[in-house]
């Protein structure tokens, strides 16, 4: 089995994001960038399937600027076998990413594509479902457990009411939720080794995919700030304020 794992380079989850003064976007200059956390979980899951003897090859793919190569190197250092960078300077919208990924799937014929359930920068949560639609494949979103048995996958999904178990035939598109696994850190020797693993660079044009954005960003603003609150000294004061000041009890 061959597994494709799309990984996105995003502002690190610990970074406090600020909006640019001219309201055209968020300030990303000199901001620490990392692999989208859900994609780390996806890479980890693919590696575990390989370690369990269920997969032979893991291909990491990223669509974005040249710097996304670092994200791919991280995936390689974790344990992916090779990587594909699809270069574009455009803002990558999920629909465009899904189309690029479809083109990669057509070239590589993976049996399983594991994506993150959401990129923590755009918070769209669309790409996996869109890719499944474009390929006409079944989808398993927000997964917290994945078992592969031959041509069949059994999946547990995190849904609003609790957990749902489904089964689906391969090929399949899956998207990871937080509790699927705990991603490993790449060891120093593996980081060194990753430098020599194959990384192919393509462009969206070479794949004949139009990545022109469909959404025009008119402005990006700070959310309204909450007014500072007060410290209460005791449970009595808290109850009193909730009853008589806030009127919520």
């Amino acid at each position: 089995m061959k597994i494709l794992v799309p990984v996105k380079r995003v502002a690190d989850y610990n970074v406090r994001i600020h909006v640019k003064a001219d309201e055209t976007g968020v300030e990303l200059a000199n901001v620490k960038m990392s692999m989208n956390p859900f994609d780390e979980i996806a890479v980890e899951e693919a590696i575990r399937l390989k370690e369990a003897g269920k997969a032979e090859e893991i291909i990491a793919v990223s669509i974005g600027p040249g710097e996304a190569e670092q994200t791919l190197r991280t995936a390689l250092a974790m344990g992916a076998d090779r990587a594909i960078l699809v270069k574009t300077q455009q803002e990558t919208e999920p629909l465009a990413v899904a189309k690029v990924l479809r083109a990669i799937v057509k070239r590589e014929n993976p049996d399983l594509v594991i994506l993150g359930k959401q990129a923590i920068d755009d918070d769209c949560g669309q790409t996996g479902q869109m890719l499944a639609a474009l390929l006409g494949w079944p989808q398993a979103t927000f997964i917290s457990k994945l078992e592969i048995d031959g041509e069949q996958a059994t999946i547990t999904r995190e849904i609003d009411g609790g957990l749902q178990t489904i089964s689906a035939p391969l090929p399949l598109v899956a998207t990871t939720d937080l509790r699927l696994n705990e991603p490993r850190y790449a060891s120093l020797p593996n980081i060194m080794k990753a430098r020599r693993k194959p990384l192919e660079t393509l462009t969206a044009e070479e794949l004949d995919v139009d990545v022109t954005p469909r959404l025009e960003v008119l402005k990006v603003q700070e959310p309204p700030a909450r007014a500072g609150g007060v410290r209460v000294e005791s449970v009595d004061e808290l109850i009193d304020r909730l009853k008589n000041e806030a009127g919520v009890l």
Partner: protein
Amino acid sequence: MAILLIAEHDENSLKEATARALSAARQMDPQVDILVAGEKCAAIARQAAALEGVRKVLLAEDAALAHQMAGPMSALVTPLMETYDALVAPATTTGRDIAPRIAALLDVMQISDVVAVQSPDTFVRPIYAGNALQTVRSKDVKKVLTIRTTAFPATAKSAQAAPVETIAVAEIPPGVRFVSQELNTSERPELTSARIVVSGGRGMGSTEAFAMLEELAARLGAAVGASRAAVDAGFVSNDLQVGQTGKIVAPELYMAFGISGAIQHLAGMKDSRIIVAVNKDEEAPIFQVADYGLVADLFKVLPELMEKLG
């Protein structure tokens, strides 16, 4: 033309998320039809028809539509979109699962988690865990949106019911098979629509401590929530997670016990009207958003609160 809204339901009742997403849809266009799809959901269709301003309800019943899986649902909805300008779904796990699949089939870039409708093609949505609000205009001919339900009021019921039209369901090819479901059967109100939410974090330390929170919630008629750390530690089930990647809540009162206030958690609750934080660390970032902060040990505060709220 008009808007098609996908109803959120569990075959037992129509969820309030539907009435909230309806408010957003009606801000785009007064002509809104609601699709109620499932295995057996005629009763749900009648509930949807009772919502104010609904033009008509489309009822699609078929065994293949049980649990509203994305494959069958997109096969059903995509052809229906020929006569609609926009598809709207609440940003629940069902809506998030289905809507992007339909959007791709329509070759439309979806707008996720809409918190404000500025015009039929311009919307506001949070990005970066709500640390920025993006205003976007869609250049697509048709629009596909998911709605952050806490940002819109629930549409009221109307005295006059809209007509319910049963639609034919074409043969749906088999794909994903439903196996089982483990649903939280708490007596507590639903997290996303409760008036009060009491939440616990890693500081709760155990499942037993959460039982105390349950008790407080019972007294207040509140729902119980949790941070990711509390869910990861196994104190409570995943469906209680509040945050950027969990549930978004905006109750009248949100009480956080032993939660530090990471941005990913704040993203899910900072639009609550009143926030209370109880944390023994006075530097905890949760205090920056709390209207009332109490620096104290939650194991002292919880019993005292219960006693005094009687």
